[in-house]
């Protein structure tokens, strides 16, 4: 497919942008001053300002990763690090400015599935513009706030946990996020509370060259259960945007957290995200991760299985079309006995797109009887597309079981013909095969997202044939 900058892609339905009077737009590039201004505009406590400036100092010392996709065309000096669309988060939809409302309306959120969700947050560029949690969960002590709000209302909780799973010095993008973070979700689920409906956040980049650096912290207390869904889209600008989030999750004893991502940024967004969960005794962490959009994604959702019999699970789907690189995978760090993990990674490449699975399995000396299974399936839709696998295994105990299987298949001419012999057009047949390949993951998604993913595959396949 030919790339025409600044013209909306026929296959990308979220590529519009609305004109807006922003409350504040920072100059391009990042300085100490930018951070100080940001922190004071947010009226943050002194310790948070220090947290940011310390992270900035680390950021300046760090270099881009020496491995993985080439990021040299990402110009950090061209990014606007803080873009504030409106004053304050609105509780009801009616209070949201019309232009922003229109954007979310066109995206089909948050009206869609309102009944189905326990709570929702909508982030527009740097700030959460609207959010709501159903009273029934509020009464049970569940906290669902933007990180900025949480910092005001529960400063001690935030201070105790922020950076505890992903320290500011973890990697260059974690340092950058820690320095300039804005928005993101804060969730606390009290002991033994099961939030039976998912909490949802929708992230939208609207302004050109805007960076989005949301910071999410989820604390699931002992025996609790919660599912969090995030969706991401952006306009089809020809200039690059940067999305660099940090997501930290603490899964206390016996708790269960599922984190679902449908990432569909436009093809000029760099998506460089660090996600990690600390999983305690008999607790479960599940990452369900769909990466469909962006120019380059580097994301390896991880879990540190720190308590006995903790379990981690990753189910991921990556789709790379022309000029896209999806460098994704998962890391399972087994530190305790009887810990188990399972990673299922599916990838689809077409039109010269590159998908890579990059994974780490580390079994520490105390993690006897640990078990891990990795399965990577790649589907190549044409000769020009590429799939790579980079598994790393570090095992420091004698009695762990780890297995790895990988398959690469080309879309079968016979399968295509079989479906066409039943009257399906070539593009319908391709879409059906691709959807079938993605089915184990689609099945796990809530209805609305499954429909969106199916529509995405149909559009991509239409673009690929004839």
């Amino acid at each position: 497919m030919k790339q025409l900058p600044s013209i909306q892609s026929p296959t990308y339905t979220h590529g519009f942008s609305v004109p807006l009077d922003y409350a504040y737009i920072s100059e391009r590039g990042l300085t100490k001053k930018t951070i100080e201004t940001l922190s004071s505009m947010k009226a943050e406590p002194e310790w948070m300002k220090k947290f940011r400036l310390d992270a900035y100092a680390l950021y300046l010392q760090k270099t881009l990763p020496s491995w993985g996709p080439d990021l040299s065309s990402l110009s950090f000096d061209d990014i606007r690090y803080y873009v504030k669309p409106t004053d304050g988060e609105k509780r009801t939809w009616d209070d949201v400015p019309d232009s922003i409302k229109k954007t979310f309306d066109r995206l089909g959120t948050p009206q869609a599935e309102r009944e189905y969700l326990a709570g929702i947050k909508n982030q527009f560029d740097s700030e959460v513009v609207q959010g709501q949690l159903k009273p029934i969960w509020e009464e049970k002590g569940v906290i669902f706030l933007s990180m900025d709000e949480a910092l005001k209302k529960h400063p001690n909780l935030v201070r105790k946990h922020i950076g505890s799973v992903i320290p500011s010095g973890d990697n260059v993008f974690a340092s950058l996020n820690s320095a300039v973070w804005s928005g993101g979700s804060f969730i606390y689920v009290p002991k033994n509370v099961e939030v039976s409906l998912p909490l949802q956040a929708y992230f939208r980049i609207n302004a050109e060259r805007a960076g989005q650096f949301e910071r999410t912290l989820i604390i699931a207390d002992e025996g609790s259960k919660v599912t969090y869904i995030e969706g991401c889209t952006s306009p089809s600008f020809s200039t690059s945007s940067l999305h660099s989030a940090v997501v930290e999750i603490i899964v206390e004893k016996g708790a269960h957290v599922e984190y679902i991502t449908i990432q569909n940024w436009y093809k000029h967004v760099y998506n460089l995200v660090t996600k990690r969960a600390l999983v305690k005794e008999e607790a479960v962490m599940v990452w369900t991760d769909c990466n469909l959009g962006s120019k380059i994604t580097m994301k390896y959702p991880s879990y540190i299985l720190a308590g006995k019999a903790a379990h981690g699970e990753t189910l991921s789907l990556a789709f790379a079309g022309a000029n896209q690189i999806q460098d994704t995978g998962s890391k399972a760090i087994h530190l305790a006995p009887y810990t188990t993990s399972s990673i299922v990674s599916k990838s689809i490449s077409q039109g010269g797109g590159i998908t890579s699975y990059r994974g780490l399995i580390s079994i520490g000396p105390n993690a006897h009887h640990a078990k891990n299974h990795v399965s990577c399936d790649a589907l190549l839709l044409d000769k020009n597309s590429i799939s790579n696998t980079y598994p790393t295994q570090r095992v420091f105990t004698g009695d762990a079981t780890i297995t790895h299987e990988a398959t690469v298949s080309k879309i079968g001419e016979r399968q295509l013909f079989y479906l066409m012999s039943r009257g399906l057009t070539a593009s319908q047949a391709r879409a059906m095969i691709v959807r079938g390949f993605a089915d184990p993951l689609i099945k796990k998604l809530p209805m609305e997202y499954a429909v969106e993913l199916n529509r995405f595959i149909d559009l991509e396949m239409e673009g690929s044939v004839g």
Partner: protein
Amino acid sequence: MRNTNISKNITKSELIISHLGVSAIIEPQTSQKKGILKDVSCRMRSGEIHVLMGKNGSGKSTLAMALSGHPDYVIDSGSCVLEKTELVTLSADERARAGLFVSFQTPIEIAGVSVFQLIKTAYEQKFGLIENVLNFYHEVEREATLLGIPTASMHRSIHEGFSGGEKKRLELLQMKFLKPRFAFIDEIDSGLDVDAITMVSQYLKEMVADSQMGCVIITHYERLLKYLPINAVHLMSKGSIVTSGDTSLADQIMRDGFDSVMKKLEL
């Protein structure tokens, strides 16, 4: 037949195959190919059941596959006209939508695509959007039961992990809903026991009577034939139809064998 959707007033039409020549592609890179079928001619009217017999490798399945548009074969010469529509120049999906159905001898597995999903999509592609999906689902379930397919199979991936006999029945189930004007049914009897053959042939008989579909049955054996009203029998050898006749030809082949029959015909 309980399905009342099918119109009883279908006009008689014809499938006319004339002087068909087909090659198999041996090496796709160099387009190297080998002639398989030569000068195959045959015509049938809607509502008729024909039987195509012949030794292994005589070209029966090649004929069916080539007509359906299989990428391993090229039609070099001749024509195949289904009610005024020339099929040879059409793509596989266009041929299917024109009213041709070919049930595969070895159907293809597709992971994650359920039996019901395939039937629904193929049906909608041909007949338009289904308004009441639940009703349609019940209809598919009912037909599956008539064919002896467990209804739980509707949610399984198409042909994945099914036995040979089950795959054949799943092909017939699809055919039922695609309502073709003409069908080639390749070795539907292999992998079926006697009871299943009775069931399947009864189903086929009713479908032909009901929809006035024309049908070519490819088989080595007569088992299926005693349950079905046969209008014509064709014998294939070395890529051509060498003789045609009524059921007595099939009886003769079964009694004396292919070689003896051909010797008598001085072929």
